[in-house]
């Protein structure tokens, strides 16, 4: 199979091409798109199995590297268009294609009757292809192609219903905010090339015997190198890692660039599930895991990573508590969970980060699809104040949602328990107690807001009777059930004591399985108990106060917290600060000044000033152009006299 790994990203790409150029009918579009991704999943699975049982012998540690063609080669700058399949890529590919295929299937039902379904499926296929390029790239540049490509697809899919202004501006915002991170990523890449002379991750032996060197295994070469900006010296590794971190904050929606993700919920719900929960936003975590040798060289950046992750986790979790929109809760929850992963990566617990990435991919996709099912079943209602009591109308959705929520809250023995617990255990065994505290509180809040959401959505009485709630069709519930099973079982990947995932990833991440001792056991028990308690509290409180909740009303907790609650609703006003106070207005004003005043009057004024001076000087000379031929003759004669005189003198 190893020579066919190019099929994995190609199949969705073919689906994209078919949907763009050939297919015009909705039904075919859905089937083709889903089929392409499903086939891709099968190829990936086959490759994965072969890799697991008979890994390629020639490479040590085992990895498959397939150079398709020489992409860019200018002078010493050589970047192949090469695909990589190693343990880390393998699990990512399975997640992307597996969850992706389910979400495609789900979309057939969810998007039925939409006016631009063909286009939708085309974008979705393109997204999967780009995501696969991202995780299967063997060099930074191709990774960047996927990195920006998924950003583009995110833009397209958020803006799918571009008739709505909110969707358009959310799409543009997502793209631009991502672009800020991407720009830092670009510079990081250039720095890497400038210092290592290559952008490939690992050594590649080409068919003709030539070797392209990789930089990850030589990362030590830059340890201790410094660069300086006036007055300050920095480690080169810190510079590179920090720039990568900025890239990560953009793509993985971390502080301070997380603001685009909640807005991104303006896209169709399956998109939120696939892109803004399961796959694209995790790209940052994947990147950090992939380039961990660089990060490990810079303790300063690792500190930043950890703190950014932990703070994001807490801030987003608090914001999630105060949302009414069913999808915004999940959006902030996603930001918060990504914070967990980033913090884990910062602490050096890459396996835990990837583990949580994988489980989160499954159960968050489940939750989003569940919320999509709710939205679908309630005829595009998203405000949880208008819901309530839906468990009777939508039993399948309810059960699966409950599983997903439990997994997210970290209830034993669901997937989230295992992965989140591993991160918290790392924070505990690490030296930094404040990080542990931040993450711990965030995880309790997670349970709380999921309890709140379940109570508001599925329990109590239906508060708005303008719609008739119904269960979604099989094409939508089927993926829910499959994912629910996944959410239950995914934790088995890396059970303590067995450590399958740790072992599997060890060749790539060079991280040995964490010790599992009594402390960890106690911690796990305490965490899950407290989480369960917190979740119950959330559920209990909102079920009890269900009478006070009406469309447009304030949250029952508002009377205790007052203005703080409003701050929570606005995610601590960070977004508003950008948009209303600082960055955006400042940029607009400056741009207007340049285009309206400085350019036409300053620079062009100078230019026209020169022209004006010449025309004034010319008018002065017009006196001589009297129109009298004889005057011209006179001047002519004067000239003759002068020339002859001059010749006589010399």
């Amino acid at each position, binding site marked *: 199979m190893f020579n066919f790994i190019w099929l994995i990203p190609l199949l969705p790409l073919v689906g994209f091409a078919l949907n763009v150029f050939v297919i015009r009918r909705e039904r075919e579009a859905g089937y083709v798109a889903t089929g392409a991704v499903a086939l891709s999943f099968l190829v990936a699975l086959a490759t994965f199995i072969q890799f697991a049982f008979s890994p390629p012998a020639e490479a040590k540690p085992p990895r498959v590297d397939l150079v398709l063609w020489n992409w860019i080669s200018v002078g010493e700058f050589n970047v192949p268009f090469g695909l990589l399949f190693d343990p880390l890529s393998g699990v990512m590919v399975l997640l992307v294609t597996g969850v992706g295929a389910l979400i495609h299937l789900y979309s057939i039902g969810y998007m039925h009757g939409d006016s631009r379904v063909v286009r939708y499926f085309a974008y979705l296929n393109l997204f999967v292809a780009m995501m696969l390029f991202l995780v299967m790239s063997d060099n930074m540049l191709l990774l960047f192609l996927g990195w920006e490509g998924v950003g583009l697809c995110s833009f397209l899919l958020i803006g799918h219903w571009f008739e709505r202004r909110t969707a358009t501006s959310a799409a543009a915002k997502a793209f631009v905010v991502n672009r800020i991170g991407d720009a830092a990523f670009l510079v990081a890449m250039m*720095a890497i090339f400038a210092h290592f002379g290559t952008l490939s991750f690992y050594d590649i032996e080409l068919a003709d015997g030539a070797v392209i060197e990789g930089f990850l295994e030589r990362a030590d070469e830059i340890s201790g190198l410094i660069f300086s900006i006036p007055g300050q010296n920095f480690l080169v590794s810190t510079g590179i890692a920090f720039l990568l971190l900025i890239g990560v904050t953009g793509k993985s929606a971390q502080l301070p660039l997380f603001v685009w993700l909640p807005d991104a919920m303006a896209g169709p719900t399956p998109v939120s599930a696939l892109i803004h929960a399961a796959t694209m936003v995790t790209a940052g975590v994947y990147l950090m895991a992939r380039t961990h040798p660089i990060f490990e060289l810079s303790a300063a950046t690792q500190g930043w990573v950890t703190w950014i992750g932990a703070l994001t986790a807490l801030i987003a979790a608090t914001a999630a508590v105060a949302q009414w929109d069913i999808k915004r809760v999940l959006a902030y929850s996603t930001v918060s969970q990504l914070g967990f992963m980033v913090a884990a990566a910062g602490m050096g617990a890459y396996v835990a980060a990837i583990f949580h990435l994988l489980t989160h991919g499954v159960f968050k996709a489940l939750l989003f699809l569940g919320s999509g099912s709710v939205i679908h079943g309630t005829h595009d209602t998203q405000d949880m104040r208008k819901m309530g009591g839906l468990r009777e109308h939508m039993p399948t959705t309810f059960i699966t949602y409950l599983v997903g929520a439990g997994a997210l809250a970290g209830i034993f023995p669901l997937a989230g328990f295992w992965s989140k617990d591993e991160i918290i255990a790392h924070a505990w065994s690490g030296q930094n107690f404040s990080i542990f505290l931040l993450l711990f509180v965030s995880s309790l809040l997670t349970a709380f807001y999921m309890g709140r959401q379940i109570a508001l959505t599925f329990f109590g009485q239906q508060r708005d009777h303008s719609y008739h709630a119904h269960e979604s069709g099989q094409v939508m519930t089927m993926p829910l059930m499959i994912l629910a099973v996944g959410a239950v079982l995914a934790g088995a990947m890396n059970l303590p004591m067995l450590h399958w995932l740790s072992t599997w990833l060890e060749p790539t991440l060079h991280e040995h399985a964490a010790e599992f001792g009594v402390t960890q056991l106690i911690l796990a028990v305490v965490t899950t108990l407290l989480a369960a308690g917190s979740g119950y509290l959330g559920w209990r409180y909102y079920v009890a106060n269900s009478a006070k909740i009406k469309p447009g009303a304030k949250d029952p907790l508002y009377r205790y917290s007052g203005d703080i609650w409003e701050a929570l609703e606005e995610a601590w006003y960070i977004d508003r600060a950008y948009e209303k106070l600082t960055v955006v207005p400042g940029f607009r004003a400056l741009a207007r000044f340049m285009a309206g005043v400085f350019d036409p009057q300053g620079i062009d004024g100078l230019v026209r000033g020169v022209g004006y001076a010449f025309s004034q000087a010319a008018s002065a000379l017009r006196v001589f152009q009297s129109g009298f031929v004889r005057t011209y003759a006179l001047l002519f004669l004067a000239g003759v006299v002068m020339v002859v005189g001059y010749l006589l003198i010399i």
Partner: protein
Amino acid sequence: MSQLGFPLLSIIVWLPALGALLLLLVPRTNDELSRRASLGVSTLTFAISCALPALFNPALPEAAAPAMQFVDQIDWIPSWGISYNVGLDGVSLWLVLLTTFITPITVLSTWDSVHKQVRAFQILMLLLETAMIGVFVAQDLFLFYIFWEFTLIPMAFMIGIWGSENRIYAAVKFFLYTFAGSVLMLVAIIALYILHRDAIAATTPGYVGTFDFGVIAEHLRSGSFVLEAGLAQALFGAFFLAFAIKTPMWPFHTWLPDAHVQAPTAGSVILAGVLLKLGTYGMIRFNLTLFPDASLWAAPAIGILAVIGIIYGAMTAYAQTDMKKLVAYSSVSHMGFVVLGIFALNQIGVSGALIQMINHGLSTGALFLLVGVIYERRHTREIGEFGGLWKVMPIYGGVTLLVVLSSAGLPGLNGFIGEFAIMQGAFMAYETGGARILGWPFVAFAVLGVILAAVYLLRMYGGAFMGDVGNPENAQLSDLSRREIVVLGLLCVPIIAIGLFPNLLFAPMETSVADVLHTFTGVVAGR
């Protein structure tokens, strides 16, 4: 005669001019026929020019002088050492192809955008093509200057006759501004000729001098003709100013928005697609080759101007409400990248700059065509007048999106390759000794241009193409016609192809770029 035994390059240069003569035989009122004839001639030129990359030998051994291929040389004014001398190397190869490719596309677009005095327009277009190709292939400074100036005349007429309300002002400004720069260049060319003649005549009495660029460059390299540092810097400045105005670099850019806004669509496409590249081509061909020390001396200052141009152009573009003006200012930003790449003075930077010239020609040309499409339908280009165009005109929306993304530098499309190579080059622009020429601070600012490109292009795209169809006048617009699809489709093919297979372009230019940078070799990464 070239290595082929027949003057292929001269045929390509003069075929359009011959076509222009033939067009005189077409009745003045027969618009359709003159368009077809012009399209036929320019397509034929393109077809013939396709032989160039096929026959091009990418790996000529590095010689003392720039190794030209397909050389045709005939004495012209022997007593001053002036000859008709055309030749091609890897630097000019793709620019010639860009010219021959863009011209038929532009001609094809005149069916929709030029409605009066069609024959005259086509004649000017073909003459312009000859002049533009001539600039790229002329190897004699005198010949170069003639072609260079000759590009001005047809373009000024195109703006002045077929432009919109304020066309005369724009045409005169365009003409005077660029002319002022080129006169300085003429002085520099003559000075170079005299200095070179006198220097050589000192050892070879009776030497009449030469305008042959290759000979002068060779003598400079071999040391038989030495320019004093101050003099070299002055000559460098004179050449550079002419090229900087044409490019246009900040702060010499103000003629560009006026010219673009007033010019007809076809004129804008040619202007942005090819004419702007004359300036940056000149920088590579003349400034770098003739005055290496002065280039090194001036590189940081020029780099700063380039970076200012990148950011300034992007910010100004953002504040525009007229789509065409927005695209025009975006050119300032993109050409800033090109200049930055050139003055990185290393292989990656200069190759990237060359690729970026091609990319800019394709993407910006396509953007102007796209703006022209909507202008022909609604006779306005204000973003605020539109909204939801993607819904009304889905194909148009899709194509525009692709081109916008290419212009914004999305990886996988052509724009990214150029921008990345340029910035990578600038990042690693260090002298042998480790002294910084450009280095990372330049990149740190230039990269803002990448962000801002997304900002202003998405502002345009989001404003005009997304959102709901608010204005009832837009509700019934017809989507792209078959001809428009062909025109734009042709541009989209290289946009994607270059993004995925840039080596097709990089490979032939490698030796020639290395040769231009001959003097700077050793300028490698500051590890």
